[in-house]
């Protein structure tokens, strides 16, 4: 099981012939992911690495290969078009890795897909992985993952790898890891993924990595308090950030008290989450949480 992706996921890569797209498509395939198609307008009819047919449009790719997920690597000016093309073709799940999509493009994209049967992960995200199903759809280093029963969700890329690395070192495997993205407007938020983890019989507990900016962590805290049935260990980074400065991620900016790490940590503490004291304690806090819940012997 795990969430969103598994053995049945048939991946189409938009931008497969580009530098980033080709590098990471190979990485996904080497991990075991079923990459069935690529799309690069103008390069239809060619083969990628002699294995994957390339099409001019998502529509054709879906008709020919029954792709049911799209992974997007196209540059920021063209990423909104790529997302809408996949949504238009009826693709149910899209992960957009691209960093730097203008926020006003994203608000339109969000409105367009809002009432369509399409879920968007990202943009500006590392993608998602289900280690047990040997399914990696994104840019994360596959080798650090271990199949298991902890769900990981995060707004970050490399910090997610840090979290996974710490879990794996302590032999705490992962059911699925979802990087939802570091932009102010993203397709899928913490609560959406928590719902999926709640319903996943193969996930025992969750590690959630938040950061400064916005109020998504508070929304997650309210959801955890009201209805989430599994234990959550939560980290919020950015306590050292000055107000008003964009800390790398477009979404990581303190614009008011509610956007601070302190405020978010207070909400998560109140919700009964296991608050991870510093980023060095992700693995040990998760371990302690699992032990105390009798989920680890």
């Amino acid at each position: 099981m795990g969430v969103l992706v598994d053995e049945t996921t048939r991946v189409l890569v938009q931008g497969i012939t580009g530098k980033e797209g080709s590098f990471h498509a190979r990485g996904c395939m080497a991990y075991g992911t079923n990459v069935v198609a690529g799309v690069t307008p103008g390069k239809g009819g060619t083969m990628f690495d002699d294995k994957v047919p390339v099409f001019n449009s998502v529509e054709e790719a879906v008709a020919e290969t029954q792709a049911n997920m799209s992974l997007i690597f196209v540059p920021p000016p063209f990423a909104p078009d790529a997302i809408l093309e996949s949504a238009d073709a009826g693709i149910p799940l899209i992960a957009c890795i691209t960093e730097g999509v203008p926020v006003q493009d994203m608000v339109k994209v969000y409105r367009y897909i809002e009432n369509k049967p399409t879920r968007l992960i990202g943009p500006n995200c590392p993608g998602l992985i289900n280690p047990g199903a040997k399914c990696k759809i994104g840019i994360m280093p596959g080798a650090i993952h271990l199949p298991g029963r902890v769900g990981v969700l995060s707004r970050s890329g490399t910090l997610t790898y840090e979290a996974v690395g710490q879990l794996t070192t302590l032999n705490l495997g992962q059911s699925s890891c979802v990087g939802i993205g570091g932009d102010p407007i993203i397709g899928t938020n913490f609560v959406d993924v928590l719902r999926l983890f709640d319903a996943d019989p193969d996930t025992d507990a969750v590690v959630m990595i938040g950061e400064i900016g916005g109020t998504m962590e508070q929304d997650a805290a309210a959801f955890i308090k009201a209805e989430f049935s599994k234990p959550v260990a939560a980290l919020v980074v950015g306590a050292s950030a000055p107000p008003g400065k964009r800390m790398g991620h477009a979404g990581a900016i303190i614009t008011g008290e509610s956007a601070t790490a302190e405020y978010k940590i207070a909400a998560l503490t109140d919700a009964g989450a296991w608050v991870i004291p510093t980023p060095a304690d992700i693995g040990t806090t998760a371990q302690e949480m699992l032990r105390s819940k009798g989920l680890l012997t």
Partner: protein
Amino acid sequence: MNIHEFQAKEVFSRYGIPVPRGIVATTPEEAKAATAELGGQSVVKAQIHAGGRGKSGGVKLVRSPEEASEVAQTMLGTNLVTPQTGPEGAPVEKLLIEELADIKQELYVALTIDRDHRGPALLVSTQGGMDIEEVAANNPEDIHTEPVDPLSGLMPFQTRRLVRKLGLDQSVASEAAKVLSALYRVFVENDCTLVEINPLIITSEGHVVALDAKINLDDDSMFRHADLLAYRDVSQEDPLEAQASDLDIAYVNLDGDVGCLVNGAGLAMATLDVTNAAGAAPANFLDVGGGATPEKVSSAVKIILSDPKVKRVLINIFGGILRCDIAGEGIVMAYKETGSTVPLVVRMLGTNVVEGKEILGASGLPVVFADTLTDASNAIKQIKV
């Protein structure tokens, strides 16, 4: 990207939003001449990329061209410190000399991206001229918010609703509604993340005028706004931040002495937090990015080493897209070129970590290796400064 008030007013004028007559001055003589041209009286406004100027002596009413010259003399070439600048303030190189306004009523208007509604939102308040955060905290009922569907845009019924909520006279209402619609076009067509008018005034003759203007632009949209890029004023930016931004490196200058270089924004924030938790203070946030070359890593290290506050360096690389050997080469390159002897702690993990450590180990640099975040922060703490 932030732009100046006078630039924001240029943009407003292009969209038909009324602004006071104004002239930019860079010398006391120009301020004097401008005031004479505006009828002998004016408001002298320091042009810096920060708010709170009024309370901090950055906005002065003058009653004669001579007084304008004197005030300009005291403002130009100084650093203005406001609640929104750091303690060092922001340099005043330009003044906006404006005609006096005849204020009957002050309103507040802003457009921003509302992350909860995942779309633009138009905010209005009758509490113009005030610190809007204070209004939001003390009298939230005085702020009216109108979420906008970005696909249909701001509709006339919405501007009419806001004008109604502001309680404006019928005679002013249509002009105010026009300004709100124009402001929405400014917001969308220029890829703004914030447009704010505080105050938007109603004059005694019943006209609507933007007395102040603030525009923040989306850095990620600059590929389609070459014209707006010309508005960038590097003098308002931290020099190291400006240098990093030109190299496409995410960098924020902080107060401590531990220079930090990390790949990935989240891991970079985490590294600062761990450093702080260990009782050491970070000198900066730096995310060197995913697809960095040795040259880019080297440039990033050089930015850190050129900061006189930096007494020790912490490198934290989780090798994925960025390989550890590339990072290692870049670090050695920067130290060799600068001849720096600042001690460094290196924590590397992931792709080509063995090669990365070999390159650093063989380089003769004053490097300590750490395996975990805890080890790294402990090692930093042990470097005496």
